[in-house]
């Protein structure tokens, strides 16, 4: 008999494998659907974890080198201005800046908001101007012009803005405590753009003096200090020195914050994966059961192929291609679906688990970030075990005499 080329042989084997998959289409479609769901679930979790971690890493690059807080009785308290010149004296410190921030519970919305105090004129110039949608608000506050009450202006996140729109609050008469005589009105002069939503969604940035009023912060005290160190190699050293010289102070470096983000998302990812573990396990058992048990028909087919002269390695090649095609399609489809779910649909259902504790969830766009290591991991945990469960029973049948399989002896 004249034999064809190696290439033609492989083509024939792949053709036969495809035919074989189609002949058992109901069983294979069931496996395919389960498989796609499985790959989709794992990929979605890995994608969202990777994407959030990356986004946090990028945005946290703008964080100060060292944040300094004062601890009293195990909790954070305001820090007096007297610490500033002392910290500035430490060699390697470029600048020490003050921060005013806190949380304000708005009873009408039953939500906590982050209040941040700063000089808003800094946002009106240069690079930062681009992150705000500036509004021209007509003067409404007690007939005073905007410029005449500059301490009571604020810029708010998109989430806050949407909530205020819902309750039709044009003017932010939000800030009120029962101990105050009257509410403190603020003019909204802009909203943060959606690109910054992960950080700014529930944020209200107030002019420093206004923030002090709302947060009831005494003069010459700040919430915390931030320290800038030009040499990144020195950051840890300087943080150590601050803690040594001033035992009442706590330092948090940018690297520590980044590590915390990474571990928080890693922990959440592990938590969600663990929650899905039972479902994943059930899927795996089902796939194992469907794929590994050769039906009497499949056994008979292997017997026939062997009986008409097919070698064991050719039979195994057929089974290999069957498994590879099915698990490959499932992996690809699962990964693509997960990609669409996370990056186009913005992970409804899963996002809430991963993002924040606030009543306002950010609706930011997740930045596509597919780590090749994730893809390798997904392929490894899907294609390889599936190939094993399909090829191994076929090998067992293929090494048995065809006579024994077809006559069912032994």
């Amino acid at each position, binding site marked *: *008999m*004249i*034999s*064809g*080329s*190696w*290439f*033609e*042989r*492989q083509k*024939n*084997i792949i*053709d*036969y494998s495809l*035919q074989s998959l189609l*002949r*058992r289409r109901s069983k294979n479609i069931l496996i395919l659907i389960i498989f796609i769901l499985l790959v989709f679930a794992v990929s979605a979790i890995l994608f969202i974890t990777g994407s959030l971690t990356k986004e946090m890493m990028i945005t946290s690059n703008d964080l100060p080198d060292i944040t300094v807080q004062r601890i009293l009785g195990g909790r954070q308290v305001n820090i007096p201005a007297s610490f500033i010149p002392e910290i500035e004296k430490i060699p390697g410190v470029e600048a020490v800046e003050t921060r005013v921030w806190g949380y304000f519970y708005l009873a009408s919305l039953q939500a906590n908001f982050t209040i941040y105090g700063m000089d808003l004129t800094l946002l009106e110039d240069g690079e930062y101007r681009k992150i705000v949608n500036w509004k021209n608000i007509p003067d409404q506050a007690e007939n005073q012009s905007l410029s005449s009450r500059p301490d009571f202006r604020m810029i708010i996140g998109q989430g806050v803005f949407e909530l205020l729109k819902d309750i039709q609050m044009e003017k932010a008469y939000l800030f009120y405590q029962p101990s105050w005589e009257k509410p403190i009105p603020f003019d909204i002069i802009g909203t943060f753009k959606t690109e910054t939503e992960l950080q700014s969604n529930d944020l209200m940035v107030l002019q420093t003096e206004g923030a002090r009023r709302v947060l009831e912060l005494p003069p010459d005290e700040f919430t915390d200090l931030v320290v800038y160190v030009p040499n990144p190699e020195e950051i840890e050293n300087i943080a150590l020195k601050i803690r040594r010289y001033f035992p009442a102070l706590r330092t948090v470096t940018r690297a520590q914050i980044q590590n915390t983000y990474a571990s928080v998302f890693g922990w959440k990812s592990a938590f969600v994966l663990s929650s899905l573990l039972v479902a994943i396990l059930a899927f795996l058992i089902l796939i194992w059961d469907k794929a590994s048990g050769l039906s009497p*028909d499949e056994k*008979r*087919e292997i*017997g*026939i*192929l062997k*009986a*008409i*002269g*097919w*070698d*064991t390695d*050719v039979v195994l090649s057929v089974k290999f291609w069957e498994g590879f095609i099915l698990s490959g399609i499932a992996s690809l489809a699962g990964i693509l679906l997960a990609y669409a779910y996370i990056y186009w649909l913005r992970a409804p259902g899963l996002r809430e688990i991963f993002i924040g504790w606030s009543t306002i969830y950010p609706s930011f766009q997740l930045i596509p970030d597919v780590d090749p290591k994730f893809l390798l991991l997904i392929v490894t945990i899907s294609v390889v075990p599936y190939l094993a469960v399909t090829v191994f029973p076929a090998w067992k049948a293929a090494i048995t*005499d*065809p*006579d*024994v399989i*077809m*006559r069912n*002896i*032994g």
Partner: protein
Amino acid sequence: MSNLIIETINVTKTYNPGKPNEAIAVKDASLQINEGSLVVLKGPSGSGKTTLLSLIGCQAKPTRGEVIIRGKRISKLPEKFMNRHKRNHIGFIFQHFQLIGGMSVLDNIVLPLIPEGISPKERSKRADRLLERFDLAHRRQFKVSYLSGGEQQRVAIARALINNAGILLADEPSAHLDSRLTSDLLVYINQLKQSGQTILITSHDPIIYQHPAVDQVFEMKDGQVIS
């Protein structure tokens, strides 16, 4: 003088050796078959005919003894070489036809050519000749499970002949056929013999083993060739 094409020397086949369900299917079977002859192995059910045919057809290896095909001691060959020998020299028609139900007539017939790397076009060409010869051309794309018993039998014969093997082995080919289809089968077998094919058939059907075209009959009983 005729050439010896098949020879078995004291062939024994034991299934499940050493186990409680051990069974000796063939015991010290020896026979010789000449090229171009039509030979029948007859005997009652369980006499070992099918097992001996399987050993000659490289479907199983003997526990003891030698099977020699075209001068080659195939029972000692590694699987790959034995399979190559089988593909090149032997066509096998199984008792229950052993066709793959979900596949078409054409796909079943060309199955032995797939691992050979023969192109679909060439496979089709070879199969078409056999489809014409066995009056199956109109069933070319039919699934074999939709065919009648006689048609399935002819598909099985066509598949056995697709690799142009010189030896055709048929296990109880009339077992599932009525007398008319058995007569048709004998016509085909006779034609194959006329074309120089060596044919070995197992059967306990007198219509087969008493047919005038049969050159030689071996009788088996309790796993042994008794005449």
